[in-house]
């Protein structure tokens, strides 16, 4: 009696395990471009206003080609992409916020190159400057197009605040900061809880002190993080941002996220005068923080000042890359459309983005703040991409964590950097 049950039970278990093994072994197959299904799924991390803006572009695409689109939003973008890739069910198109990830995914073989999609990569790349095509090209093959760009070399302030004014040099900025340290409203707001705000500070200072070439070497793993130029830039940073000059002190800043930082300057109860962050601050401030703000009158920005005249004023910028995970005709058409000036013009007219596409005219931008940012992006004499977004894997976050530790305790700089350099070596090498 027992044997009968044991046998059938054993057979059941065996059959089920074989079925599971067979399913697990069915890996990905990279087929050539095939006909699409009529719908393209797009994944990105935008929600709210940014999503609405992008949806307009997708709607225009459907109107033009008849191909439907399905937009999905995931704030925790990278975990979602990795899980779906592992499940064999990646989104057809994804808009990736960090070029470092684009390189990782391309090297893993998860992305479809423009050539494999049947598109003319050279022709598409004509619309973009070299700085942008560098982000989408891995080992000579282009894997995507830059969807949107923004400037991160921007200091926000209130023009109706008589105690601050735009300055052109870092020394003037330091003087202005020192003169305000005894003011009840501190000079700087800092959203240090979101450590990427600190990385943006470092990148702006580093590019202006060590220069564009060293910057690119540093963030591509060719230059050690223990280099003296890094320490000098960190010293400048901690000299400007410290307990006296930051609203709430460093501890308070470490407890404030980046939207909270915007609020410290632009909410109805301001506690600080200046905020350094990207061009997107304008959109968020107007939409979410304080809708009563008037661009030009109560909210405006000036470019991050120069530090070393010899290094000029390179623009630190960010951007998102549109890339394909699945190879079919519909996907190819969508990528081609998103790379066109037509799509760019629609998208910028919403005021949500700045387009790196050379074909998009300045007149397409709807408000003063975005026009100013677009002009800054287009007119940059030198350009570097947001460094922490260039770092592989979670190294960018670890870099942010290091900066949090350093602004808290500048004397720990050396030990933190040597520890980080080891991690960096593992990450770049592995």
């Amino acid at each position: 009696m027992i044997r009968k049950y044991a046998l059938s039970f054993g057979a059941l278990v065996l059959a089920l395990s074989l079925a599971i093994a067979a399913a697990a072994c069915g890996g990905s197959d990279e087929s050539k471009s095939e006909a699409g299904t009529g719908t393209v799924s797009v994944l990105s991390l935008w929600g709210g206003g940014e999503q609405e803006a992008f949806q307009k572009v997708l709607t225009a695409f459907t109107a033009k080609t008849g191909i439907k689109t399905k937009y999905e939003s995931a704030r925790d973008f990278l975990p979602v992409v990795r899980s779906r890739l592992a499940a064999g069910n990646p989104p057809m198109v994804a808009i990736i916020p960090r070029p470092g990830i684009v390189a990782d995914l391309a090297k893993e073989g998860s992305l479809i190159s423009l050539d494999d999609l049947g598109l003319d990569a050279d022709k598409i790349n004509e619309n973009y400057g070299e700085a942008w095509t560098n982000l989408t090209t891995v080992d000579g093959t282009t894997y995507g197009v830059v969807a949107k760009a923004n400037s991160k070399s921007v200091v926000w302030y209130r023009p109706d605040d008589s105690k601050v004014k735009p300055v052109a040099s870092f020394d003037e900025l330091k003087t202005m900061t020192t003169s305000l340290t005894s003011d009840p409203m501190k000079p700087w707001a800092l959203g240090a809880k979101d450590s990427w705000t600190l990385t943006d500070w470092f990148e702006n200072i580093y590019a202006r002190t060590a220069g564009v070439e060293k910057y690119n070497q540093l963030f591509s793993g060719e230059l050690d993080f223990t280099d003296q130029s890094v320490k000098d830039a960190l010293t400048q940073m901690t000299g400007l941002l410290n307990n006296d000059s930051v609203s709430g002190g460093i501890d308070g800043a470490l407890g404030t996220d980046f939207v909270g930082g915007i609020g410290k300057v632009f909410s109805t109860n301001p506690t600080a005068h200046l905020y350094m962050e990207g061009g997107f601050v304008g959109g968020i401030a107007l939409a979410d923080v304080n809708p009563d703000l008037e661009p030009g009158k109560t909210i405006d920005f000036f470019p991050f000042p120069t530090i070393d005249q010899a290094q000029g004023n390179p623009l630190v910028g960010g951007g998102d890359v549109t890339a394909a995970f699945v190879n079919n005709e519909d996907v190819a058409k969508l990528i081609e459309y998103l790379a066109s000036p037509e799509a760019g013009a629609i998208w910028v007219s919403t005021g949500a983005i700045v387009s790196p596409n050379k074909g998009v005219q300045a007149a397409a931008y709807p408000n003063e703040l975005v026009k100013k940012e677009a002009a800054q992006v287009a007119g940059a004499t030198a350009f570097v991409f947001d460094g922490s977004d260039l770092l592989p894997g979670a190294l960018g976050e670890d870099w942010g964590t290091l900066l949090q530790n350093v602004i808290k305790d500048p004397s720990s700089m050396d030990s933190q950097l040597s520890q980080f350099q080891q991690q960096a070596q593992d990450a770049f090498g592995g």
Partner: protein
Amino acid sequence: MSSGTVAPGSVVGKPPGRRLAAMREGGLQALPFLAPALVLVFFFLIIPVIWTVLLSVNKTRGLNFGTEWIGLDNYERLLTRDSRFLDRDEWPWTGALINNIRWLIVYPILCLFLGLLTAVLATRVRYEAAFKAIIFVPMAISATAVGVIWLLVYSPDPNIGVLNATITGLGGDPVSWLGRGDTANYAIILAYVWASTGFVMVVLSAALKGISQEVIEAARTDGATEWDIFRRIQFPLLSLPIAVVSVWMIINVIKVFDVVYIMTKGGPGGATRVIAYSYYVETFENGLGGYGAAVAMVMLALIIPVMIWQIRRFRSEAVVS
């Protein structure tokens, strides 16, 4: 074992021989009925564990198996070279593992203390039901909501944070509870204690009610003070429920992730990282499935002794109600 009545709620041991014999007789006939559950356990518990072990000894591409067997390299790196997980360079040691130990010490003690206190006090007031309901309500909130609520409470901006508004109202300077490495851990633990005390209280309160009133009356007539009653009658009889609740809390602590993710993302400067957070970062953000699997195995290794202890306790004792 005494003859006559045994006080309800007391712990009685059963002779082991009789139980095993009973199991052998009826157990195998139960197998077909157990089969569906066993199949589920096999596929959703045993196979994933084996899969994770295999992942942790291979070099992986994202979440997929690579082709390289690297043996215990991941574990070696995790326990010796990963300063965010365990940093033994200077005393006191820091890192995710140490933070979990911090949680292990502070959280169960605080929860037990507060739970016991409220359970015992609640029996002595007329508005007991309302009191217990209020203490229990946080259990109904998801951990994410708990994280967001306390994030706002701890905000360093006195316009937003209740705690800092109180402090500045009394004339002090605002404190950045989640921004300072030394306070952040305890701040998060406190939030989690707030959320779980209700459960401890309810379990212990039910156990307390199970203690016969006659025994307590008898003690009172013998001249025992309330404190004597608590210390010598109620507390010893609560030892099993306390053990059960402690195990639940210890396992919770080893797994804790959501509050840390919501409130500080392991910050500031990595000061509040916990094992589960390391697991998440390594697997999903770093894309190192194998390394993340090694972290998961460390977590399992920590939980297994606790589970074994709990199962042993259940097997050797039974509560007579």
